[in-house]
């Protein structure tokens, strides 16, 4: 690991620890309103001030970090699992199944990703409880975000298909499911990890975009995207620059994820 990657990994670990300990560090519940001090500046009781509804900004930031940093890896895990299954099976079986999977993948890769998300979001109810909106965002990103990974995994599985050890396993009567689980999957594991880590920053940014547009995580539950919705009021932002903290945190986390992944695995 290069020094810069070590620094990035340390920052990520620190932010994750902060996220886990958020419950103990929160000055107040994220939805609690201090109605006598809306739009307050930083103070001892509220280190990042309060928002327009009088809610503690630090509490909302810490809880929002938890939502965004749990949602993106969970969606990345789901999409990587789908990609791993489809890509490995397509690569292992080859033939028409591989052609169909790759054609479907190419097709969906050519479509703008946000348009697809909007179509799916439009089919679901908008007026839902905040927790349901989190689940919807997670499922949408997880179920629609696997295409890029499938191509890479399928190409690698195709390489494994022609290997000697797989031929030996086949000749000794190994069933396809066992071939997949015992022989193909362990060889592709580094690739699965790489695809998982590549997907996380992408999903963090997607969640932010959707929430800013009012189609992601719903109020009063905070997420980084939700917290950035207030940026539209620039005069308020220039008077209270600490409101930019969610954006700074998001940029730092996404940059750290980009740095922490070994270059050769991204190239793969």
């Amino acid at each position, binding site marked *: 690991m290069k020094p810069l990657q070590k620094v990035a990994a340390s920052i990520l670990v620190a932010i994750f620890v902060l996220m886990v300990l958020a419950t103990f560090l929160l000055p107040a519940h994220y939805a609690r309103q201090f109605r006598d001090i809306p739009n307050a500046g930083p103070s001892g009781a509220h280190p990042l001030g309060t928002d327009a509804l009088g809610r503690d900004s630090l509490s909302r930031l810490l809880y929002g970090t938890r939502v965004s940093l749990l949602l993106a890896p969970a969606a990345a895990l789901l999409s990587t699992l789908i990609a791993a299954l489809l890509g490995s099976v397509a690569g292992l079986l080859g033939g028409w199944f591989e052609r169909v999977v790759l054609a479907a993948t190419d*097709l969906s890769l050519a*479509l703008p990703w*946000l348009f697809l998300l909007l*179509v799916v979001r*439009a089919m679901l109810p908008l007026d839902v409880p905040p927790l349901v909106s989190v689940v919807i965002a997670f499922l949408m990103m997880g179920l629609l975000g696997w295409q890029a990974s499938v191509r890479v995994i399928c190409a690698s599985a195709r390489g494994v298909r022609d290997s000697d050890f797989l031929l030996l396993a086949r000749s000794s009567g190994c069933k396809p499911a066992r071939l997949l689980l015992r022989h193909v999957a362990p060889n592709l594991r580094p690739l699965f990890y790489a695809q998982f880590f590549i997907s996380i920053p992408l999903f963090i940014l997607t969640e932010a975009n959707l929430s800013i*547009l009012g189609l992601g995580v719903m109020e009063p539950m905070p997420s980084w995207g939700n917290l950035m919705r207030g*940026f539209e009021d620039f005069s308020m932002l220039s008077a209270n620059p600490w409101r930019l903290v969610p954006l700074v945190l998001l940029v730092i986390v996404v940059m750290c994820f980009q740095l922490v992944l070994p270059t050769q695995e991204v190239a793969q």
Partner: protein
Amino acid sequence: MTATNTSANLLRLGLRRLLFLVCLGLAGALVSATLVRFAPGYGVEERELDPRWNASSVEALRQKQALHQGLPSFYFHYLLALAHGDLGESDSLKRPVRDLLRQRLPVTASSVVRGLGVAWLAAALLASLGIASRGWFFAASTTAFNSLLLSLPSAVVAMLAVHLRTPVFCAIAVVVFPRLYSYIRNLLVRSYDQPHVLAARARGLGSLAIFFRHVLPLAAPPLLALLGVSFAISFGAAIPIEALCDSPGMGQLAWQAALSRDLPLIVNVTLVVSLVMLAANSLANLAGRTFAGSVP
């Protein structure tokens, strides 16, 4: 003989792509029709709940809806209307989808084309400068800047564009630029490191001659493929940018349709955008193959 074969192959490929696009359009239309047909609330008119309408009027409305309730009849009428260019009516805006698309598509197309032009120019220029200078400071600073731009959500770029009063195409360029720059830079570095380019340099060939004769033919096919992909990226970026910059384009239309759960509108917008994207990708691929075929 070889040139004739190459042209025939390209023609065959072009026709195959066209057939693929037609089939895809048909499949997309059927999927769109299915989504509209099975969406919650299909066949229910809001006017049915209006107490000012009497029973016979409500019944007449229901009869009108019932006309296409059978599945085969629904698909038949949908495809028939589509063949005549009728994409249905928007539930929320109460206007024909075709008129809305005709009004909005040129706005987005103009922003996307201008944004892509600026992004490509900036990315190619910066990547070439990086190759020419080969200094660590330039490489480190451009990588850091690029990484910063890649880490910004498109919606935040759009809000910045609103505050700075910059046109929509500038925001699209800012979103697309970092993705283009990193790819173009890596491609040029790889092309310049090829043995035949090193040999040409050792023989004392000028920089321009090396670029146009040895580097560009190598880099052109993947760059043309990237052009197709960059269309998809910029159309995707157009949604938050047009929505937040209040630009009356396809992105804003899609966003409004999603917010008002207007399925006939959103699926048709997506269908049209998808077909435009696929046509752009196919053209870029064909151009890449033509270029690769013309290089000896």
